[in-house]
């Protein structure tokens, strides 16, 4: 388990992909082969010209490099930190075929974008286009809406994001594992996006503080980028006991509060689930100094949805993975969690069944639910006539067009949960589609 002294807890959350120094960036950028029809570009959902930006680092043209990245992906500074590059660009790098380490694309991207996004610009790289008098409302201010809005303002639109939370950014601000990117970094990047002219109205819940009808009335088009909901109860006894939490709430809290307030020294934690959220909850619990962290997953390792490299990190941090195990009851004393009663499972004829007599109790102080985010169905229903899949995601085509005239959607509320980079890409494509349509109307 990770060291739990207070300094160490803070150190545990230092950047997992730290900045490169100039010389290291130069050496790494020169390692890139500058491939023809480069596979890394094709593996990037926002299709950043990766060898292009890397060779600009090599030439010493950092501003040009940042432009190449941010033109394709306005949240390029976040993505440099949070993208699962192992699965995307770096996973596609031809260096693998040479049995060499792939080019460190993420950190090079950070090297190029950080100065522009975080150091204040004398000459802004991007500017709002000259106003065309059209207005677009965006529901939510997560990556999808920000990607869409940033593109829209450059095309001359007024873009207004309505965000129910007190701070913008969605899961990019509140959900990303803290050792990948801090809350403060995410917020600073959004401030940079706002300088472009993107307007964000926080504390404005659509359907509550402002109605869908009003959006239709005041704006020429609407983009839905509301993401998904929290992780709801899994339906076992004792879930109301203090110490049972939605892992997303837990992560948001550890990101926004001083680490000493959220440290888990001496505590034992069980995380329920098998996806990336569960893994992030395990890793961060461990890094907060917990004595023991279990991951409780009802199926075998082969069925786990979490990325292999993230699982490895969690294991290295001391996470104990318990497979084929289903929680059936949270136990408590004096209103506090004391244990998690589980049974062993096995798959018979394709269905998951409990093994008789396999009852056992994990001695834990906290239970974190990470069994999948809920859908924001009641909000989506307020968009009358909006076509929705049975499982609650919005139906939209490649350009983000929904079943409704002048309503587009993108990000997790359409995909059911992907990465920041996908949300940005979908938002941007929707902006271009909105532009094509509204232009046509003229």
């Amino acid at each position, binding site marked *: 388990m990770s060291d739990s002294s207070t300094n160490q807890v803070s150190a545990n959350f230092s950047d997992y992909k730290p900045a490169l120094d100039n*010389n290291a960036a*130069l*050496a*790494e*950028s*020169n390692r890139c*082969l*500058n*491939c*023809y*029809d*480069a*596979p890394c570009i*094709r593996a990037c959902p926002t299709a950043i010209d990766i060898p292009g930006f890397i060779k600009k680092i*090599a030439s010493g043209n950092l501003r040009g490099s940042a432009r190449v990245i941010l033109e394709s992906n306005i949240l390029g500074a976040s993505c440099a930190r949070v993208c699962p590059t192992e699965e995307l660009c770096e996973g596609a790098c*031809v*260096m693998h*075929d*040479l049995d060499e380490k792939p080019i460190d694309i993420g950190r090079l991207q950070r090297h190029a974008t950080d100065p522009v996004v975080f150091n204040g610009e004398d000459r802004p790289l991007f500017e709002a286009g000259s106003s065309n008098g059209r207005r677009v409302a965006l529901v939510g201010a997560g990556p999808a809406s920000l990607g869409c809005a940033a593109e829209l303002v450059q095309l001359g639109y007024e873009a207004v994001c309505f965000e129910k939370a007190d701070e913008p950014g969605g899961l990019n601000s509140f959900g990303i594992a803290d050792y990948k990117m801090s809350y403060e970094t995410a917020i600073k990047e959004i401030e940079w996006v706002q300088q472009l002219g993107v307007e964000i109205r926080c504390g404005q819940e659509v359907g509550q503080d402002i109605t869908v009808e009003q959006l239709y009335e005041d704006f020429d088009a609407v983009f839905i980028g509301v993401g998904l909901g929290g992780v709801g109860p899994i339906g076992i006894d004792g879930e109301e006991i203090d110490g049972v939490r939605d892992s997303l709430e837990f992560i948001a809290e550890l990101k926004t509060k001083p680490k000493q307030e959220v440290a888990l020294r001496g505590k034992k934690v069980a995380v329920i689930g098998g996806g990336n959220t569960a893994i992030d909850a395990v890793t961060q619990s461990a890094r907060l100094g917990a004595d023991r962290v279990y991951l409780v997953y009802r199926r075998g390792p082969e069925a786990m949805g979490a990325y292999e490299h993230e699982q490895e990190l969690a294991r290295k941090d001391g996470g104990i993975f318990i497979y084929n195990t289903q929680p059936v009851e949270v136990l408590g004393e004096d209103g506090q969690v004391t244990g998690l009663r589980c049974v062993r499972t096995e798959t018979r004829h394709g269905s998951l069944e409990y093994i008789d007599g396999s009852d056992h109790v994990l001695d834990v102080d906290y239970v974190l639910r990470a069994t999948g985010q809920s859908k924001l169905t009641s909000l989506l229903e307020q968009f009358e006539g909006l076509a929705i899949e049975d499982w609650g995601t919005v139906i939209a085509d490649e350009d983000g067009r929904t079943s409704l005239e002048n309503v587009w959607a993108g990000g997790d509320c359409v995909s059911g949960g992907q990465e920041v980079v996908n949300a940005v890409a979908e938002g941007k494509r929707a902006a271009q589609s909105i532009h094509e349509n509204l232009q046509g109307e003229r």
Partner: protein
Amino acid sequence: MADLSCNIAGIETPNPFWLASAPPTNTGDQVMRAFDAGWGGAVWKTLGEPIVNVWSRYGAVDINGTKMMGLNNIELITDRPLDVNFKEIREVKDRYPDHTVIVSLMVESDPDAWHDIVQRAEDAGADGLELNFGCPHGMSERGMGSAVGQVPEYTRQITEWVQEAATVPVLVKLTPNISDIRYAARAAKEGGADGVSLINTINSIIGLDIDSLEPQPAVNGKSSHGGYCGPAVKPIALNMVSQIANDPDTVGLPISGIGGVSTWRDAVEFIALGSSTVQVCTAVMHYGFRIVEDLKDGLSNYLDEKDMTLEELRGYSLPKIHNWKELDLNFAVNAQINQEKCIGCGLCYTACEDGAHQAIHAERRDDGRTYVEVKPDACVGCNLCSLVCPVDGCIEMVEIPNDFDPCSWEDYTENDGVLAPRPEHQ
């Protein structure tokens, strides 16, 4: 372990690796540490009337993140008193009698001045002398260094003056800042030189700091042209060494090869083109005396593997250097891509398509990877693809046999030679 001892112009030396006259041979302490590390000889930092140096003296070219591929300096000859230098030379020779100490000299163009310093160097125990007619900056403004080396008559004259006083072998160090190195070597030989060393540094402006737009190395905002050396200059040096070694007027004149030697492989090239010893400066300024261990080890392994002596290697490649008009125009090669090794980077395609002869076909396969293939009827065998390919041995240039006799340009234009057909150009 191959025998690395050798002889240059009558000087016996434990191995062919010498420190060139430069900052690594400024002091007796350095030279002794270098000998302890394994260097066979050292050419002492040039002695003459002590000068005053500027403070900011070196500049470098980094290529693609690799540091110091080329180095330039505006440093002059020794700035330490002559008697201190001679005392240290004496001490080094007393303690390391088997190692070679060559003393590099440069004084004004006056026979008495040369006679005097030659005498003092020999008194201190020098195994040989090297006349610095090569320094291209500063000293040349005072009529010394390359101001001498660029005028064959001066080179001959001063070499003669030196030989009037010298009893030990004399090497003349040549400047590459001329149009044909052979004239300088011939003049040195005519003046009585026992050998030549080359190349000294190439005149250069290393670059500007493009923020301040000041030339580098900047001395209070200004700079001066300086001498260029390091790995980047090796090809120029190799050509000059081979020219002198192959020149009928200077054939057999002992050569100490200098310019960009960093590894034993570089040394093999200098020796195979006729050098007896090699001298090293930049690589030592970069990585220290310790590099000699691998210089010796690598050269020794190489000789063992080739079953060759150092003497047999010397000049081995000289007969293979010819005038262009003597090369065989009927020798055809084509690029051959090993698809098993190919990683699909497409660099060969881009290079050939834009930079050469449009002889590689590229397409995106179903699995998303790039597939490349050589068009044999378009390939002129230029080598470019094999030079850019990042995978070792992936693109080979293979001979395309034909039934034609060899035919050079000379054969073709003067002896009724017959040319094999060539690829048709679009």
